[in-house]
């Protein structure tokens, strides 16, 4: 359980809807404690890859290994046990609209733990206060703003103290300040909870600010064309597509821009 050892391994993964191949031959390793970025242009299959990694979409070929165990070849009971170690933040939050925030977070605790109601209430309060939403227990998702919904969804994702946190476009639909705060929160939680974080995003600011490892999925060849620390990719990559993506289409990395990207990425 030490940081730095392989936690999630994806081997020769091919994902297809029917006869249409969305992604082919993906292989990469995510180490414990990484903030791993899956990046690429819109429509490139990033979210599809995430769905395959969290057990929603069976791959056509290949494996997803968690601590060496293959997610798609274990029996359903074991799979459900592994899935419970995940926390997933969906793109639009996906809070259950008929439940209050407190009930949203309490549901996984009620289902999978033997805690008594008072303990669950304490945990719910804790999770909400971690995302800065204490006092909002009795609000319905429709009664709070988009940024707050996203943070409440993060609180729900953390309900069972997951080993791996998945984020699907965490900053989509947030203003720059909220997006920045969410990035800070992700970093903080990774450091203090010692979880592995997988983020699907195409927000350059986030990519450089939080990622320490990444894969770039090319929308045309439907596979990984670059991998590594995004900041290193920016300076060292020879692939024009990767450079174009990381420089918002400018294509050229001039020195000043490189410096600002790195500054923005560097943590105080």
């Amino acid at each position, binding site marked *: 359980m030490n940081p730095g050892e392989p936690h999630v391994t994806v081997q020769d993964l091919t994902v297809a809807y029917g006869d249409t191949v969305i992604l082919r031959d993906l292989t990469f390793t995510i180490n414990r404690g990484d903030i791993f970025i899956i990046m690429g242009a819109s429509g490139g299959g990033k979210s599809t890859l995430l769905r395959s990694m969290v057990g929603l979409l069976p791959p056509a070929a290949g494996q997803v290994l968690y601590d060496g165990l293959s997610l798609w070849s274990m029996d359903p009971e074991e799979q459900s046990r592994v899935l419970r170690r995940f926390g997933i933040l969906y793109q639009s939050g996906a809070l259950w609209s008929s439940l209050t925030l407190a009930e949203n977070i309490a549901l996984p605790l009620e289902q999978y733990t033997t805690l008594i109601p008072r*303990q669950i209430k304490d*945990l719910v309060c*804790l999770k909400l*206060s971690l995302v800065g939403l*204490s006092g909002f227990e009795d609000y319905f998702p*429709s009664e709070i703003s988009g940024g707050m919904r996203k943070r409440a969804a993060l609180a729900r994702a953390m309900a069972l103290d997951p080993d791996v946190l998945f984020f699907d476009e965490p900053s989509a639909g947030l203003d720059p300040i909220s997006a920045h705060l969410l990035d800070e929160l992700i970093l*903080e939680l990774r450091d*203090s909870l010692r979880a592995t974080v997988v983020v699907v995003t195409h927000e350059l600011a986030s990519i450089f600010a939080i990622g320490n490892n990444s894969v770039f999925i090319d929308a045309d060849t439907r596979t990984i064309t670059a991998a590594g620390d995004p900041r290193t990719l920016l300076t060292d990559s020879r692939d024009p597509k990767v450079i174009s993506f990381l420089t918002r289409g400018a294509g050229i990395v001039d020195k000043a821009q490189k410096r600002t990207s790195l500054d923005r990425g560097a943590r105080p």
Partner: protein
Amino acid sequence: MDPAVLAFAQTDPDALAVILSGDWRRANSPPEAGAVEERLANSPQVRRIVLSTENLTGWDSMLLTFLIGVRSLASRNNVTVHEMNLPEGVKRLLALASATRERTLVKPTAPRVPIVERVGESALAFWRSLLETTDFLGHILVALVRLVRGTAAFRRSDLLLVVQQCGAQALPIVSLISVLIGLILAFIAAIQLKLFGAEIYVAGIVGIGMVRALAPIMTAIILAGRTGASFAAQLGTMQVNEEIDALRTLGISPMEFLVLPRMLALFLMMPLLCLYADLMGVLGGLAIGASMLDLTVMQYCTQTRESVQLNDVWVGLVSAAVFGVLVAVSGCMRGMQCGRSAAAVGDATTSAVVTSIVSIVVAMAVITAVCHVLTV
């Protein structure tokens, strides 16, 4: 995993050492802050709690709730807490949890409302819903006027699609229900009429019953459940996804673009479905007549033709058209009034079916009374 252990030691008369050790995770069911409070109650002279966590081998949120619990009980009892050597992550999470970024506003709990006020509220709500319905009907009228003038903005392909969905695709269920209704009606009538040796009149009872009342009402109820509910769910989801707002801001009236084709489709298809249900119902009656009552097919048909007047058919068809409009209007209205959540779509669908069925039955009563007065 080592069990989670909570130990106490009295170092000074006024200081209580609280020692946490072992694996403090949920699976180990670690002790709760209540244990500290009990210990504190036994030694009232304690003014300081010294927490030490050097021997912790693992922790998760359970440790955090424990520490928060200790902090709050300490402040309640005027005791200070010294936290020694907390794990780095725990310190940071506790700091994060106590820094509230959002302004804390606790939702006011609903005060108890006296019954008179509640009755008044629901009366006002009823009045408001009447106004909303009238408003909706007014908008439909405006849309209809624009349709007659040929300036309504809707796509013919939409109309044809709805016609197909609520017409042709409803045939199987309409057949099944009306044949069975015809059978049941004939069976009950046969048992009674046999007593008088008047079996032949089964044909008349089934014919008039189906054509005048049962075929239109059963078809309408089937379509309320099948099509009205789907209208409400579809428009409700469009409301949730802001698709209706998108139409409005483009200057396209959702009344014309969404409601008109659905209403027209049901207005046109309901009488046709009703006519079909008439035939199916008579067929069901015929099955009983021919099998149970020794009537020939010819006899049964002649008797049906003699007893069912053309007026009966017209009354049935007109009621069917009216019901069609009612089902479409209820479905679309509830869909358009839908709130912006998944639960609201469910409510809209339920409400659409209830409104349709209530309005169908009320309309049936009115039509029957009017026909009686006009002696149709």
